[in-house]
């Protein structure tokens, strides 16, 4: 299971890298959001997938590793903030210059 998830994460990383290397701003943002998913899956895989839900209850047995879960929870919320910021940046950029192609954007003087 862990190996499968790692390979899945690797494929997601590949796709996101490819998207981020393109010229289009929207594709870059999509690539970033994919990269977030890939790193979350990697973190989960590092913790392992054996054990119970990490809520202390009546059932006995080991818990699944709770630390990656806490880290990922933090990361999800932060990446939401960052994604929305970059989205709005792209939006404002398009509104100002009417260009969403990075190659054409390059070299335009600041306001």
């Amino acid at each position, binding site marked *: *299971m*862990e*190996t*499968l*998830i*790692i390979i*899945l*994460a*690797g*494929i*997601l*990383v*590949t*796709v996101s*890298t*490819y998207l*981020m*290397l*393109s010229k*289009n701003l*929207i*594709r870059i943002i*999509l690539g970033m*959001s*994919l990269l977030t*998913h*890939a790193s979350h*899956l990697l973190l989960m895989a*590092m*913790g392992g997938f*054996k*054990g119970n839900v*990490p*809520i*202390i209850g009546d059932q006995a047995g080991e*818990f*699944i*590793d*709770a*630390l990656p*879960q*806490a880290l990922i*929870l*933090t990361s*999800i*919320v*932060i990446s*939401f*903030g960052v*994604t929305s*910021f970059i*989205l*709005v940046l*792209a*939006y404002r950029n398009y*509104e100002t210059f*009417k260009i*969403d192609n*990075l190659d054409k954007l*390059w070299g335009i003087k600041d306001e």
Partner: protein
Amino acid sequence: MITVSYAIFFPFIVAALIPILYKRLSKLHIGWIVMTVPALLFIYLARYIPHITNGKTVTNTVYWIPSYDLNLTTHLDGLSLIFGLIITGIGTLVVLYSIYYLSKEESLKHFYIYLLLFMGGMLGVVFVDHMMLFYLFWEVTSISSFLLIAFWYQRKGSRYGAKKALLITISGGLAMLIGFLMIHASTGTFSIREVIVNVGIFREHQLFIPAMIMILLGAFTKSAQFPFHIWLPSAMEAPTPISAYLHSATMVKAGIYLVARFSPIFGGDLVWFWLVSGIGLLTLLWGAFCAIRQTDLKALLAYSTVSQLGLIMSLFGVGSISFNQELISAALYTQAIFAGLFHLINHSTFKGALFMVVGIVDYQLGTRDIRRLGGLMSFMPISFTVALIGSFSMAGLPPFNGFLSKEMFFTAMLKISELDLFSLDTWGILFPVIAWIASVFTFVYSLIIVIKTFLGEQSESLDKPTHEAPKGMLVAPVILALFVVGIFFFPNIVGDYLIYPAMLSIFSSVFAGEHLTHTISAWHGFNTELFMTIGIVILGTVIFLLLRYFKYVYKLFPEKWSFDALFHHGLEGLERISNKITSFYMTGNLKHYLSYIYLSIVIFIGGNLVYRGAFTFNFTDDANIHLFSWFLVAVIIVAAVMLIFVKKRLPAILLNGFIGYSVSMFYVLFRAPDLALTQIVVETASTALFLLCFYFLSEWKQDKKAFPFSIKNLIISVSVGVTVVLVALSVKSEKLFETISTYYENALELAGSRNIVNTILGDFRAFDTMLEVVVLCIAGLGVYSLVKIRKRKGAENLED
């Protein structure tokens, strides 16, 4: 009882409240509220005087991060009390003065917030014991000084001066930080007092001298010592209350505080002695020499401050010799430090008064140029009197406090010249000689301030009417002038109640109390010191009368080779070179930057893995694979690959959302209910956001060449993906350390909560969560300001 640790934060708290108060109380000059802060703190600190005079100290610890040994320990002793009283006392007067100096049209909100930030930082510097916190507060003062110098940021000179001050003081601060780290490396503690206790071991360590030099760099840059003094005259672009407060009374004395604090550690060493006293004397001479040729009154005062700081510094250098173990009559030389502390107090009083008078002249006449000023005595009698008292005190004339400390300074210099240690038997004679010459110059520029401004013919080129300043503006300088006279007549009150306990706090590790009392008296009989003063008056008057001819001396020092010009050209050159280097690889194209990052991931991480043969692969420990997982994996892969080939925006956004939801399905499979819930809701919100934004964005072009397939990009991305997989597999297969997660499984016992994930977030690692919330809030505000705030106000009247 409120402890000192909390008192430090009082200015910060008020600073945070100012924007609200400013809005609510728009009729009141906000300065009146700000003034209560230093006034209350002054009263609070003054109540400790009887306690401290008895030789006691007050130590207080607030636990911050005990596991890192990082606690806010404040230590109130004689030395910090003197500085604390100066900071709050002069602070009260300066704020009072600024209320009349700055009209309500100015951006008072910013001014007082920066001022309070500075006050808090400065109090922190003098009270904390932990070196890292010391550094933190030290930089707070540098940054608030930067902001205050650039208060009139529309002016080019202000911005230049602020940048210069910041560059020099921050570089010095960085050197000091390195010095602190060296001390930590050799003694294992960040507490200054603990280092003093273990000073014997530290002296043997090989890092002793490097740490000393690094810390001195911090002190010299902050206290504007030669050749770092150039930032202080440029900093005079600040509003005058700031020049009076930061750049003469308090911040520039932080370096002296640093030297005084570390004297018990480094004092008695040859290098320390020569550096501190040598640089001090050089600064004294050079500052006084440069002051004479200034035509701007504030620049003159700035150079005189530089020179006076050098004087105090040299006294601390000379006094440090009494820490030398081999010296039998060591206790004799404590007098120098006594004189240094005394002059420090005196300088704050007379220089503060002088700055305020210059501010009044500037405020009334609109110029500070001495070539245009003159004959103001009859119109501004009170200002004239204050200026006279301040200048004559600075010149070292009776009956003002400057006379007393200058006499003590001469005594210290004469005494050191007779010593035969550290090759003083050959070079020692230079000490009194340089001191005397510099004092002649001091006398000359003190005369210039009074005579050229207030006496003589009134210049006709001034169009503003001349009359005395508003009464409120005069209160603060008059109070300071009264202190100047008062201290002359009752010097031993200051000596016994303030300086003696400060001496105790510096020397307590070496001497008993009885060696540290020195009586200050105005009359010692006809001794060398008195003759030196008489000589100064005679020669100084001669030079002043022949000033026109004396100015030819300055031709020997061409403008082109001044330290200012060197700094300026050096900085410009540095900027040019670094621009050249940077523009070589910073092309401004995002794709290039990302390629650098990806290639370094592949080369350094992947290459390292291969080079060390660290790749291991072991899946005996893997959990079983659900059938559903296979399905999910396949779906996600298909969706991801489709994302590359999609030619329209809407499908792309939906595919992205689809992948997000599938990942949240995985969280369900992985028994992470909190994650699954959060992921679903976040995915919904961000897809909505995408759609909202994309609705207004351009449609992707329909032609086939819109996203050309790039084999180069494919190679980069595949190699990154392979690297990630290899690294992750190796990490998974070989666990080098015991997992730390088992600790968190005691959530119920430790934190009384059953949900382990939430306990980690809210309790065990709440610090992360707190900062995360801050990041989220900043992102929100960023979005808001990106969209809402279109144009900067005030941008049009900016000077280039």
